[in-house]
């Protein structure tokens, strides 16, 4: 009994993988199926950084803000990404191409400063490299 209830988080994960985010009807459905109050479902979803209640961009950029990256200039990397995309952290470009996030640590401190686009790592970044990587992505589409 306990276990099925606790799996609500993994259910939520799977739903998110389906839709790319968690639209309100999906959350309502989760609430009904798991017998957990909708308020609680929202409480959980809004607590964790990995759940999204808004539509996501096609590519997710995660700029690492770990300590190693920070001392090696992650701030400039983030600034460069913001400038290039015209959005700030936590936002999605209007064409729904990119969403830009920061992450506490990607665990790849040896590559610092690092960012990840979808599942690909880009290490030892400079503002210029960020610009060229993002432009590559944009022209590839």
């Amino acid at each position: 009994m306990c276990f099925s209830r606790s799996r609500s988080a993994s259910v939520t994960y799977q739903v998110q993988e389906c839709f790319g985010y968690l639209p309100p009807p999906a959350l309502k459905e989760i609430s009904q199926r798991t017998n957990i109050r909708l308020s609680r479902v929202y409480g959980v979803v809004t607590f964790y950084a990995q759940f999204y209640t808004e539509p996501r961009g096609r590519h997710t950029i995660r700029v690492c803000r770990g300590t190693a990256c920070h001392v090696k200039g992650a701030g400039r990397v983030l600034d460069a990404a913001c400038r290039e995309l015209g959005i700030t952290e936590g936002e999605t470009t209007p064409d729904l191409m990119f969403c830009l996030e920061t992450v506490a640590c990607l665990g790849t401190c040896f590559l610092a400063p690092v960012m990840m686009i979808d599942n690909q790592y880009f290490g030892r970044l400079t503002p210029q490299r960020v610009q060229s990587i993002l432009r590559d992505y944009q022209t590839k589409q």
Partner: protein
Amino acid sequence: MIKPLTSIDELSKLRAELAARPRPEVEIRVCSTGCRALGALEVCEALEQEIESRDLDRRVRVVRTGCHGLCAGAVAMVIDPPGIFYQGVTPDDVPEIIQSTVLNGEIINRLCWADGDRVIARQEDIPFYKHQTRLVLRNCGVVDPRSLEDCIAHGAYSALPQVLSAMSPEQVISEVLASGLRGRGGAGFPTGRKWQFARAAAGELKYVICNADEGDPGAFMDRALLEGDPHLMIEGMLIGAYAIGSGQGIIYVRAEYPIAIEHTQIALARARQVGLLGTNILGMGFDFDIEIRQGAGAFVCGEETALIASVEGKRGMPRPRPPFPATSGLYGKPTNINNVETWANVPRVIQQGAVTYSEIGTEGSKGTKIFALAGQVRNTGLVEVPMGTTLREIIFDIGGGIPRGRKFKAAQIGGPSGGCVPPRYLDLPIDYDSVEQIGAIMGSGGLIVMDEATCMVDIAQFFTEFVQKESCGKCVPCRVGTKRMLEMLTRITEGEGELADIDRLERLGQMIKQTSLCGLGQTAPNPVLSTIRYFRDEYEAHILEKRCPACACQALLTYRIRADICTGCTACAKVCSVGAISGEPKQPHTIDISTCIKCGVCYQTCKFQAIVVE
């Protein structure tokens, strides 16, 4: 496929069989976890193609291993025998490696570790490895973590039979107690004591949990262990579960570690398939299984009560202790939580025996500690050393010192809960107790090296911003207090601080430490308090002189082009995204300070070092 093992004998037989299998002449062990970020899989594929095309399948085998430790050298590989370490390998290097090194036994110097002109080819001779004691990491980078056979051949599950056949649960606990093993997750609570509490707690149903929610920025040892040698931790959990009397284990791993999740899942499935998990394990009447749960991006879930809430599918908010999880944990049942590295130490304790194990380390801290060495240090990577090793040994002997000839300024130990250790403590033997005395904590073992270009106020602000963002929001001191601290720090880094702020930070910091509900809040002020303690002058410079001595705080910087050096090459003007740089070609350029956004691109672009930061 191995048939399910129904007795200890069968496991021993299997191990003997596996060891007796014909081995290839050469094994090429490529890190395909951490190094994946720089194309390790492509290197593996290239190797396999090359081997196939040269029809070397029987003689040469590529092993996709976990992390070798020297992450600075990604993509890294070891060619064994004779144990040559290559770094920075790309697929283009592969034909040459096969031809020259594997077939002809020649060393390729450019792929070797080097210190100036000194080139070292053999892994064991490289200073980075020479000064380590790889007890827990022994098989990490050696075995194929996805192959149970390979792991068993290398000694996995060799402590478990001993435990199940010859030791009572109480004996296991006394052994762990006697070993002096302390929790590697942060606070260093004696592991045996924790197990005692959980064993003594009333109730049939008990849980053991592996905390793999390694959230400290700058820490990646748990990731490496899960990716590189998951069976070691599973064996540790089995032993712990037996000692405590638990039938159900849970590994709580952060979602940001996809490879770790994948490898752990494979390992669990394989262990279950051969009967190392499940009912009547090895025919000894012991039942235990493990489930894996993913974290969803909340640092605070590293705190054990928050972790439990998260496993229960709730908001990951800590709750007051007591009751401790040992008496009322997951679903209100007795629960024992240890982190990955702690669990991974357990089989070693049993294999070596408490007496031998406790010979490593210091009086109060036994065994080894794995550090994730990063920041302004040459050999970034994973380092395992005996407790009591000095910072100097770690940073200079193993880490190779600070690059670009800069000076060591501080080491940040213990992540956001830790503190900044100044140069004067470089020779302090590092263990749980010594670190705490100087205002840091061991934490999970993140070790970030900082040089003179690092601003300590900025670092304090950085960590405070981190904990502020990661505060669950439940208790007042952490939720509001860290916010106010961050605001003060931000004002200081922007030149808006006042001297009284230092005082306020200290008082508020002390209060937050004393009153916060959980470990995250109780340690959140550590980076601020320790930097004030050791680098007060930097705070004062920001406040009184409106100056960042390390030239790191953007708001206090100005970029200027030295007319005497500038050649007018126009490169800087071209890259300036806001058009703040003007000047005629071949004439010295100037930066309009009011337009400049201090992005630093021009500074990095200029080939003549004509741009200065002040």
